[in-house]
């Protein structure tokens, strides 16, 4: 009995915690994105090699970082869920997956839009874009597997196992794709991430990256809260808050 109450309590506590910090994070996120956009699009100087087109990195690179970060969050939560059967971890993983897929899609689309003027083609089998494409497949598989189960608890555990299998594979896939890429295309024209990026270009990039991260957190908290409500709909604390019209 204690375990059961304990689990309820932790969902309830998380609901309350997320309720308090989400507005603050949302405000901070909006400020960071606005300032980052302004500094990235207007203030940062033109790149002498790529011209203005380099400004795509201000959305491409944060999306690409987020696509990996969200997968790591999912894998981490999956491990916690499988080991300690902590339902909150499963909810966070479930809430994160569609957003991770969306960021992966953005990274692919903006990468392609950057590639057209740089490489002269919409799609180049570049190591980074290829890895990103495979990551998108992993996300789609994760969501499809979870959705295919009628029993949601079994679906959650199956998806968690798949996420862990995926996280073991991601470095291998990434390494093998890079290896394959150097094998078939010895001379790459321009590297996407120039190692020596000027500080005035770097600061907006970091601001955008942090803004994206907060954007994910705000939405993840909101979605997690919605899912907690649905799972706990018949418990007394949700009923009480529904009565007070304070959900």
């Amino acid at each position, binding site marked *: 009995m204690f375990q059961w109450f304990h689990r309820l309590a932790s969902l309830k506590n998380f609901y309350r915690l997320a309720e308090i910090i989400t507005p603050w994070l949302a405000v901070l996120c909006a400020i960071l994105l606005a300032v980052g956009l302004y500094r990235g*699009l*207007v203030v940062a100087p*033109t790149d002498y090699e790529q*011209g*203005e*087109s380099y*400004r*795509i990195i201000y*959305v*491409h690179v944060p*999306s690409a970082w987020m696509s990996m970060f969200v997968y790591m969050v999912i894998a981490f939560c999956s491990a916690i869920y499988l080991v300690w059967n902590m339902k909150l971890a499963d909810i966070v993983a479930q809430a994160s997956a*569609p*957003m991770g897929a*969306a960021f992966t*899609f*953005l990274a692919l*689309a*903006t990468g392609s*839009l*950057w590639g*057209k*003027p740089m490489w002269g083609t919409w799609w180049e089998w570049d190591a980074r874009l290829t890895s990103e494409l495979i990551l998108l497949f992993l996300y789609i598989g994760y969501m499809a597997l979870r959705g295919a189960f009628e029993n949601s608890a079994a679906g959650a555990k199956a998806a968690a196992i798949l996420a862990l299998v995926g996280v073991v594979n991601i470095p291998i896939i990434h390494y093998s794709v890079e290896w394959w890429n150097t094998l078939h295309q010895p001379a790459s024209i321009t590297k996407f991430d120039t190692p020596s990026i000027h500080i005035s270009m770097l600061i907006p990039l970091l601001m955008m990256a942090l803004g994206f991260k907060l*954007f994910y957190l705000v*939405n993840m908290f*909101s*979605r997690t*809260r*919605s*899912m907690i*409500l*649905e799972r706990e*709909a*018949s418990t007394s604390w*949700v*009923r009480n808050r*529904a*009565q007070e019209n304070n*959900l």
Partner: protein
Amino acid sequence: MKEFLAMGGYAFYVWTSFGLTFVVMTAIVLSSIYQRRQAINSVKRQAAVARQRADQKNSL
């Protein structure tokens, strides 16, 4: 301003990238809001059903 919008001849690529990002992120926000509404409605519906049942029990 015109120069800024032209993006040194890369206007299409740059603005499509930023526009697409904006659209996707807006979609994420809208779907978060939609999910929250759905959850609240479902909780209210279930609470109403439970209350009705409790009333019936009391009146019996």
